[in-house]
């Protein structure tokens, strides 16, 4: 494409450099301020009382013993819970609310899932509150519950899959599949997963007065500050200026801090009742049931092809779960809409309802489970056709996005496959499974494609230029540990032609210009878009300020550039202070707004190829990963170091998803049993081999105002399929259920 959706931006200088993340030193020296560590004068502590049954009615809550205990200030139950308004949730009104669930803490007379907060105790110390919480006696009238996807009827269609219908048909896929020469028709079963960030979810709520009005300040672990502010406004009928939400750093979230979970609302209730600031930290156990999960999913993928490998039909269908009262729907068939060329396509999802907390976004929610199924099925098709799986993918490379009927903004999947294959020495791979041994280990390699959409959230940023040659960004975005501050400073530095060390940034506070959700790998491009818009607005302002006799005064703002703190126009240049006077004496600021690309002319996604070598000991049931390589095309990489870390992190999560992560239940009791990180396994260092990360560094100005698409989540999306394909190559056996644990592998 000759012209791009967003005008190209030259990003020389700081952008791309492997600059060390700014919060790094504070983190490794233990001085980084995380929410749960905060203190406020007069702070009290709350501990929630979770239900021990999965479904039923609350008959009584006996608080008398707790109330008598030393240090206990109050017990909050439905009898004394302060007034609040029941509002739409995130799933119903993405722009207005980030509330996770319709089930409110300490406010319901019924229980809808085990772990629901039915009451809370506020005390002088955390220990006293914990003690008090144990002393609250709840009597229930138990009702039947269902917590297993195998036991729940999948008799419902989700209302919407991130805006798309639950059934998508192009042509008649069922009969095209029937008539195909070569067919693969396989089922996949994926376990429930929990996010388990190291930082526990926490909220400190403080009701106060401000200019005669009630005001609420919440320090909270969140990926969605600006939306949290709106949510508190609606919950408590407050104006924007009456609510301030602050989160300086997030210590891991993976989607689990995108929505507002009941502990935050509960902290506000508690603080109101005791008229003092209250801190509530969810315990590790309460993260299993308190803060959402990835739903278990059952999928079927059927692919029909000609004997030359041309795909004729793809069917991808299945069931995910949601909770009794909420409507989160996992869009696991989403990536199948545009991955491969096919004559006919059928995508169809159903859902069932379980007595659980609402499921939520987790580590590339739609793509991770969906791509596992699709990319395993593609590998199975390659085996049936006796084709190399890379060649099969190349053969079915589409020209445009089938469902959207739009050209790709920038795809590069074939390049990723080729470049990755070469670095991984794919050519040396014997086609036949069970061909390589190393002692007791069978060795196999596998490949899978990865993808993630380019998502944007409306964001505003204020950029300030100072006459001392420094610049500053203000934006209520979040620092999830990904390096938002570092990379945005680089981005501004490149636009101003100065070194990144001259740029600073404040985020994490709703008193700053509103930012979007730090989820969906959207932050870098959304904040970047706002920063770019702010620079454009500054150019306009500077033209207006220019002395009327200078060439700048009649310049087109677009022709203005910056270098070393100077304003340039053609061969003329001005020091900033030459243009400044009056109220703009020392600095000049402008707010830029980025709305996101609603009606894009292109299909905007990132792509990648992932390669894995595994060793399998089928006598002992062990799978160990020996090598991993990922090659990605995500547009501009803003910082080679933090970028690489994002890809590495994603791929490591993929190892967990493929081989370890599984929430275990006692369905008899309707409760999660492995609610700790000794039993809920995520990869440890010893599980992770040497990893190689590479990328195709080509800015995508069709998808993104700064050429960069998200990189946070794509890293996980192909890993599980690459691992299961490698296990097939090692053993000759297919494993379609995740996680692939020893009892499945052992012969």
């Amino acid at each position, binding site marked *: 494409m000759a012209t791009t959706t967003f005008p190209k931006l030259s990003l020389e200088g700081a952008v791309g450099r492997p600059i060390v993340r700014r919060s790094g030193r504070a983190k490794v020296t233990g001085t980084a301020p995380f929410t749960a560590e905060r203190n406020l004068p007069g702070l009290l502590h709350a501990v929630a009382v979770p239900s*021990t049954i999965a479904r039923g009615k609350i008959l009584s809550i006996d608080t008398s013993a707790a109330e008598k205990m030393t240090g206990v200030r109050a017990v909050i139950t439905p009898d004394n819970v302060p007034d609040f308004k029941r509002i739409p949730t995130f799933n119903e009104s993405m722009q207005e609310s980030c509330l996770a669930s319709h089930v409110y803490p300490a406010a319901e007379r019924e229980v809808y899932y085990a772990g629901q907060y039915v009451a809370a105790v506020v005390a002088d110390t955390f*220990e006293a509150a*914990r*003690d008090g919480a*144990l002393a609250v006696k709840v009597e229930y009238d138990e009702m039947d519950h269902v917590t*297993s996807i195998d036991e729940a009827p999948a008799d419902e269609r989700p209302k919407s899959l991130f805006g798309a219908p639950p059934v998508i048909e192009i042509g008649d896929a069922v009969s095209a599949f029937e008539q195909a020469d070569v067919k693969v028709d396989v089922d996949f079963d994926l376990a429930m997963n929990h996010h388990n960030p190291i930082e526990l979810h926490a909220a400190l709520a403080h009701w106060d007065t401000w200019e005669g009005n009630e005001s609420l300040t919440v320090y909270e672990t969140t990926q969605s500050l600006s939306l949290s502010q709106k949510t508190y406004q609606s919950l408590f009928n407050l104006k924007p200026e009456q609510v301030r939400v602050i989160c300086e750093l997030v210590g891991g979230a993976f989607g689990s801090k995108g929505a507002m979970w009941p502990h935050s609302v509960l902290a506000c209730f508690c603080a109101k009742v005791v008229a003092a600031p209250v801190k509530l930290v969810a315990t590790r156990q309460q993260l299993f049931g308190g803060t959402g999960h990835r739903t278990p999913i059952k999928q079927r993928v059927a692919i029909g092809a000609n004997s030359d490998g041309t795909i004729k039909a793809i069917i991808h269908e299945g069931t995910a779960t949601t909770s009794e009262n909420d409507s989160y729907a996992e869009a696991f068939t989403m990536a199948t809409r545009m991955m491969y060329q096919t004559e006919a396509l059928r995508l169809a999802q159903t859902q069932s309802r379980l007595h659980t907390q609402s499921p939520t976004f987790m580590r590339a929610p739609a793509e991770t489970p969906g791509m596992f199924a699709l990319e395993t099925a593609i590998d199975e098709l390659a085996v049936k056709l006796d084709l190399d799986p890379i060649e099969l993918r190349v053969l079915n490379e589409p020209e445009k996005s089938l469902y959207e009927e739009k050209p790709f903004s920038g795809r590069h999947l074939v390049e990723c496959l080729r470049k990755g294959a070469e670095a991984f020495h794919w050519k040396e791979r014997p086609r036949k499974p069970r061909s390589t041994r*190393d*002692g*007791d*280990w069978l060795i196999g390699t596998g490949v899978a494609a990865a993808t993630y959409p380019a998502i944007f959230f409306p964001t505003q940023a204020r950029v300030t230029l100072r006459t001392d040659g420094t610049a500053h960004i203000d934006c209520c975005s979040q620092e999830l540990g990904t390096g938002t501050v570092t990379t945005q400073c680089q981005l501004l530095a490149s636009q101003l032609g100065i070194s990144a060390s001259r740029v600073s940034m404040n985020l994490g506070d709703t008193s700053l210009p509103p930012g979007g959700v730090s989820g969906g790998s959207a932050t870098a491009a959304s904040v970047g878009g706002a920063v770019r818009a702010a620079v454009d607005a500054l150019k306009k302002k500077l033209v207006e300020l220019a002395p009327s006799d200078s060439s700048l005064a009649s310049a087109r703002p677009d022709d203005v550039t910056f270098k070393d703190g100077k304003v340039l126009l053609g061969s003329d240049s001005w020091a900033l202070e030459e243009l400044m006077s009056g109220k703009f004496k020392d600095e000049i600021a402008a707010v830029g707004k980025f709305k996101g690309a609603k009606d894009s002319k292109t299909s905007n996604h990132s792509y990648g190829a992932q390669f894995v070598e*595994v*060793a*399998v*000991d089928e*006598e*002992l*049931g*062990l*799978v*160990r*990963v*020996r090598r991993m390589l990922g090659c990605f095309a995500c547009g501009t990489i803003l910082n080679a170091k933090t970028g690489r870390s994002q890809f590495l992190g994603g791929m490591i999560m993929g190892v967990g998803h493929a*081989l*370890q992560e599984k929430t*275990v*239940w*006692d*369905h*008899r*009791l309707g*409760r999660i*049993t*492995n609610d*700790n990180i*000794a*039993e809920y*396994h995520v*990869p*440890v*260092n*010893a*599980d992770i*081999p040497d990893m190689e990360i590479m990328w195709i560094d080509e800015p995508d100005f069709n998808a993104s105002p700064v050429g960069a698409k998200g990189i946070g989540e794509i890293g996980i999306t192909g890993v599980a399929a690459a691992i299961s394909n490698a296990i097939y190559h090692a053993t000759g056996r297919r494993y379609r259920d995740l996680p692939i*644990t*020893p*009892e499945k592998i*052992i012969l």
Partner: protein
Amino acid sequence: MIPFEFASPKRLQDATSAIDHKSSMALAGGTTLLDLMKLNVLTPDTVVSVASVLGNSVRLEDDTLTIEAGCTMAQLADHERVRESFPAIRQSLITAASPQIRNMATIGGNLLQRTRSTYFRHPDMPPPDESFDDSNHEKFWHRVDLSSAAVLGNSGRVVGTYPGDFANTVVAFDATLHLEGPDHQRTIHAREFYQIPQRQELQYSVDLKPGELITAISFPVTPALKNSLYFKVRERSSYAFALASVAAGLELEGQGSTATIRQAKIAFGGLGSIPWFSQAAVQALEGKPATDDNFEKAAEAALAEATPPPGNEYRVRLARRCLVRSLRRLRDVGPYSDTEIWAMQHGRTPTPA
């Protein structure tokens, strides 16, 4: 957590007289005790710090290795003589827990770690009390969590697996525990110390009387302890409890499969309700030629009495294979080196040192 008194006596005698292991409990490294107190599983009124009154020396005298109970897991694993000569001891420590935990945890506390069974760790989750034989209940068993349910020593019902590693080496190699009370000392063979759960009990019990502390543990140094290994299979490469493990030692006369087994030391971990010394395996091996066939027979015999919970049958196969593989290795090559153990974590073939 429920409030408790904290005592830190200066002399062992004051500590022992203050401890009854129920309302008043010993705190050594705390990695089991504090965890379970936070979960409200153990609720002592008094916690008595014993770390400073227990010795922590490791001594090798007259063919006996004596380890004082206050010695940490890390200290014992890294002790020069242990590193050089007693592979099963070292390996059952370095493949357990994490470096941080091993730096805190003591040998005495280690022997008394509790089952990881969810029904023990959640006092408000009643365990299933049906018997496995109840075949009408096949569906029932899919609905409960059997991941920490013992395969051996379970009387056909759900009881918790003894999760530890080092204790398997302890029972395999005939170690003795030294116990001390306010006015007495006694020793007990480790194999008699652990008792399988009785009806209604969810996990093992021990022969430790109120007032008694473990003060030391001693291993007779035998040729089999020198030609030994600890082989642990776990879901992830590190920081996970065993799905099955074997502590094994062989004293051989002769070479290869024509050699005669003079002495065999065998115990299983991750399977039994207690660290599982296998008399049956020892009997099947001692005095016999070290053939693959005899190894297989020993493995059969060792697991003959297993009553795996539904869905856990694979752990019996796994245990047999762990044993056969360990014995072959000891016969053909000898103990693993650390480097080989790390290589195995990454799916690489151990290259003998």
